[in-house]
């Protein structure tokens, strides 16, 4: 019996291979996007973990200074009091091969690091590391770039180091980073004495950080990965709409079959079990295909993601994707769980199916205006719950709000469409028009899920593109302010920088020095810049808020300007005092925007910076040309000082580079939002095809009344476009709300900067055209089928009528 029942159930798919294909494809698409995002995140996480394992003994606690470096005297005092520690000096080093992360350890006491202990050509690294000349151990690509530059320390290669990291002895790091002995952190070694004097009693301002707490790439990139995950989840939800639509449809279509099987004596339990089994097999098939597709998608997206992570966060990320059990299993689990969720309604109906129910009482009819109201009420509740999640704040709260808003509005869509079509019907005068709107309203319940998917994807696209567009506009304007100089020069040494300055000043150009260093502040890196007192800064620097005479006080070494994200992170406002380094205290004179920088940044007067860090290299200068300056300036300089091309960067080149990094960052988001739109278009196609069988009895009378098949097909196409238009109209405000949340809630939480919102009507139009194209494409297949339908089929409708 069971076998026969199974064959009968499966025969449905044999007769409707397209429907089967839709179900599996819908599931595959949903799983694919989710899996792709998870695979990318997993790859990045494993790259961070590898990097951490290679450079940081994470299993050991660390001591850091709350207000900057750990003085060498503090280390000595701790050691004499019995603390067993290994000192570390690390920071960003402007190497001849670009800026790299320099990690200086004491190889005698540091917990074993493979890169330090390896042998090269039978030689131990230790003597080289401890030698006077020093040894820099770098990953393969970087080592080659470093060794091509003439410089002091020897170079060794180690594949055991993450990209962009150079390992060396603490003395070499001290020299290259101009630290004067001050330490970045102290590794607390295992086997401490039982009774140790408290840290704060030995040296105030030191903090013991538990093992595993890190300010490594994980902390900086968490927001980026959360963004990706949110997107993956959204795509998955959209994909599930397809699954839900197809499964419900198949259940409806087989209602007669179920009834027959039950009447023939198949227990309800067996029927449900068979249907559940069928669903699970499809979930596995769709999920498996989805994982494969996801893997391929991730492989395509990976270089972009890696470039973003490297460019924006200096985070290490590989360029090859490996199959990992975590995201494969998570993908399959999501596919199974999602399918069950999407099919639960259909299964529940089968479970409650009365044996003698009338076959014609289609469930589609249940989605009347009443149920649309109920849905809308649920939607309102979801939106309110989301808004409540916003109150405690935080990134997760922001995303919960977004989720509530999107889901809530989607649930309100059927009611909104219902009302809109009723309004339109009232204004319709011709009988055909009245029929059109009435028919459209009647079709709404069957299409509403697909339309919800469309709404979500459209709103997301609008929201994301508005956010990215607003950001880009602000960023471009900010670049113009920030990069006001015509040329940025890096001289070979301080003396040459001085010569260049004189040469340029004789030719009417203004030359301003650029000096910076990096210091830890409350466990996170802080960039400290010194600026000259010059009109160019006063006029151009992108200051958000500033006290009066801010620049005067900065120039006098009494005040400091801080970046927006630094201010947000530490709840700092103009007028408060800040001690960025031990024994320093400055009044915060203003806050400026510093987009795209994951690190905190502050600006001091250059004389103050020189006082604090007397040994900083003075090789970089910014040149502001005047009418008297020879043009092109870089050509003239190259001739006069035989400077290599890489030593001079024109303002335009720098801007191009910055914008390229920026665009790459949003490439992934845009790609994902377009893919989501494709999935939604596919959902519409599924729904329309699903309705096909039941359309004929509704269209046949019109045909009989003299409306040609061609006109009916056009009307069907128009129906799809009308629904898309209505949905788009609702998607616009939702998308803008989404953009607002992204700009004003998510961005400040995730990156530390808030952005003004700009409108992009042209982009919306493009998106709407794309959506209508997708809808037209989805409606075209059934419309063409209708157009080509033999008259006998339409006539047959009347023949089959009882």
């Amino acid at each position, binding site marked *: 019996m069971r076998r026969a029942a199974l064959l009968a159930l499966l025969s449905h798919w044999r007769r409707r291979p397209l429907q089967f294909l839709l179900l599996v494809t819908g599931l595959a698409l949903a799983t694919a996007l989710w899996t792709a995002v998870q695979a990318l995140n997993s790859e990045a996480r494993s790259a961070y973990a590898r990097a951490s394992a290679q450079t940081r003994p994470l299993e050991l606690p660390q001591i850091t200074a709350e207000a900057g470096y750990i003085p*060498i*005297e503090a*280390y*000595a*005092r701790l*050691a*004499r*009091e*019995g*603390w*067993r520690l290994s*000192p570390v*000096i690390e920071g960003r080093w402007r190497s001849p091969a670009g800026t790299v992360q320099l990690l200086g350890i*004491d*190889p*005698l*006491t540091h917990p*074993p690091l*493979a890169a330090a*202990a390896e*042998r090269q050509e039978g030689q*131990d690294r*230790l*003597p080289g590391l*401890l*030698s*006077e000349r020093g040894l820099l151990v770098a990953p393969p690509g970087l080592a080659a770039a470093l060794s091509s530059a003439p410089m002091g320390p020897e170079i060794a290669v180690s594949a055991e180091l993450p990209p962009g990291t150079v390992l060396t002895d*603490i*003395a070499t790091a*001290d*020299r290259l980073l101009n630290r*004067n*002995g001050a330490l970045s952190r102290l590794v607390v070694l295992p*086997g401490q*004495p039982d009774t140790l004097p408290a840290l704060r009693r030995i040296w105030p301002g030191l903090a013991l950080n538990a093992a595993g707490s890190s300010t490594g790439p994980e902390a900086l990139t968490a927001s980026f990965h959360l963004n990706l995950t949110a997107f993956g989840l959204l795509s998955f939800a959209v994909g599930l709409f397809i699954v839900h639509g197809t499964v419900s449809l198949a259940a409806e279509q087989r209602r007669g079959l179920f009834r027959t099987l039950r009447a023939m004596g198949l227990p309800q339990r067996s029927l449900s079990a068979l249907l559940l089994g069928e669903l699970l097999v499809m979930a596995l098939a769709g999920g498996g295909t989805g994982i494969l597709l996801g893997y391929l998608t991730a492989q395509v997206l990976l270089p972009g993601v890696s470039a973003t992570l490297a460019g924006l966060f200096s985070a290490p990320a590989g360029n090859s994707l490996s199959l990992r059990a975590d995201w494969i299993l998570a993908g399959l689990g999501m596919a199974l769980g999602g399918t069950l969720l999407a099919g639960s309604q259909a299964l529940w109906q089968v479970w409650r199916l009365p044996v003698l129910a009338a076959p014609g009482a289609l469930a589609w009819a249940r989605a009347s205006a009443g149920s649309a109201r109920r849905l809308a009420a649920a939607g309102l509740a979801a939106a309110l719950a989301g808004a409540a999640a916003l109150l405690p704040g935080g990134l997760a709260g922001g995303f919960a709000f977004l989720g509530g808003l999107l889901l809530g509005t989607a649930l309100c869509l059927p009611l909104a469409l219902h009302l809109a079509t009723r309004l339109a019907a009232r204004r319709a005068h011709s009988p055909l028009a009245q029929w059109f709107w009435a028919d459209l309203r009647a079709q709404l319940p069957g299409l509403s899920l697909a339309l919800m998917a469309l709404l979500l994807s459209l709103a997301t696209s609008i929201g994301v593109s508005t956010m990215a567009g607003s950001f880009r506009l602000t960023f471009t304007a900010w670049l113009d302010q920030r990069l006001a100089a015509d040329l940025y020069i890096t001289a070979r040494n301080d003396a040459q920088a001085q010569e260049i300055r004189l040469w340029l000043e004789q030719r009417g150009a203004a030359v301003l020095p650029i000096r910076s260093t990096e210091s830890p502040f409350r466990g996170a890196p802080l960039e400290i810049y010194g600026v000259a007192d010059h009109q160019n800064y006063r006029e151009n620097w992108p200051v958000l808020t500033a006290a009066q005479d801010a620049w005067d006080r900065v120039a006098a070494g009494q005040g400091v300007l801080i970046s927006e994200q630094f201010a947000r992170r530490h709840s700092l406002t103009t007028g408060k005092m800040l001690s960025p380094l031990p024994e320093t205290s400055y009044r915060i004179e203003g806050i400026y925007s510093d987009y795209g920088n994951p690190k905190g940044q502050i600006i001091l007067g250059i004389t103050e910076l020189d006082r604090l860090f007397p040994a900083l290299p003075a090789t970089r200068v910014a040149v502001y040309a005047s009418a008297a300056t020879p043009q092109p300036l870089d050509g003239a300089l190259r001739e006069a000082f035989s400077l290599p091309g890489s030593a001079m960067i024109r303002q335009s080149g720098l801007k191009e580079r910055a914008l390229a990094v920026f665009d790459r960052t949003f490439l992934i988001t845009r790609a994902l939002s377009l893919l989501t739109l494709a999935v939604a278009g596919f959902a519409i196609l599924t729904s329309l095809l699903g309705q096909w069988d039941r359309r004929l009895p509704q269209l046949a009378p019109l045909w009989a009344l003299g409306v040609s098949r061609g006109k009916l097909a056009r009307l069907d196409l128009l129906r799809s476009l009308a629904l898309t238009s209505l949905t788009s109209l609702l998607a616009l405000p939702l998308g803008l709300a989404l953009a607002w949340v992204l700009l004003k809630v998510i961005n400040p939480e995730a990156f530390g900067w808030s952005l003004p919102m700009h409108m992009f009507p042209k982009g919306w139009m493009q998106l709407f055209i794309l959506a209508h194209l997708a809808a037209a494409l989805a409606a075209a297949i059934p419309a063409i089928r209708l157009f080509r339908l033999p008259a006998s089929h339409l006539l047959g409708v009347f023949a089959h009528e009882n």
Partner: protein
Amino acid sequence: MRTRFRALITFLILAWPATAAAQGYAGLGSTAEGFALPERGTALQFPRDHSPHPDFRIEWWYLTANLKDEDGDPMGIQWTLFRSALRPGDTEGWASPQIWMGHAAVTTATRHTSAERLARGGTGAAGVTPAPFSARIGDWHMTSPDTALQNLFLEASGDHFSYSLQLAAQTPLILQGDRGYSVKYRDGQASYYYSQPGYRATGTVTLDGKETSVTGKAWLDREWSSQPLSPDQTGWDWFSLRFDTGEKLMGFVLRGPREGFTSGSLIASDGSTTPLPPGSFTALPQAYSPSGDVPVAWQVQVPDHGIDVTVRALNPDAWMQHSFTYWEGPVTVHGNRTGSGYLEMTGYR
């Protein structure tokens, strides 16, 4: 990986004589790398020479004590600070080429436990200052209220032990070899070497959580050089023995492919010292440890002075297994003299 680090440090501290001697020019005053070399006839000056000599490649402050606990059971402690220079000279900060290593141990007949500390020079975490005298690495220290090392205060601790000792010198300082110039081989390798063999010690030792008061005798060795060993020398056996007659004997065998090079000095109870010319001190292994790799009983003879004794390890398993491995432990003396002392053996593992 740990093993590799050990090997590396061994290179720094112990294996260097091979390169040093190969590159060095004995008698010319400095090695190829610019390290100073000991010269015969240089008068040692105190308290100056209690302090580090950063122009020499290696140096140590080496204290051993034979003690008895409250029950009268014998016990030994070691407190050593090694200095090893990567380059001659010193500077403040991380650029200092000086590396410091501390070894401390407690040994009884049944227990031997030890610890090591490493630190870079120039940072204040380790080093030696002359006035008042202080030698320290981390929280281990050997300090003196005076500059002549008359009285010493000593502390160290490890995972299973800690000790705190007060030492008072009963005899004057002893200059080893030729007025402190100690020849280490017939090729002329030498070191500066002086000792204070006559400390009376009191204090407390905590071993495996159990504290006990101790009393006994202690011996301080001070030595610095840049190339004391010849490349073909494989290790040494070094004895510091305290006889119940009041005499003290320091003697060593530098083992090599040819017959070992021996030297030493005999210190009378009044403190007068007789250098022992090469060959007059002999030490022959008589029994080996259960593992078979190191002698734990020796026949020690100085025929010219009628000394013929058997020196036996209190605990055969007194291995110091840290950055480099050597054997260091208390010994008992029997034969035509009785007494106690310390034995150090290197190059067996």
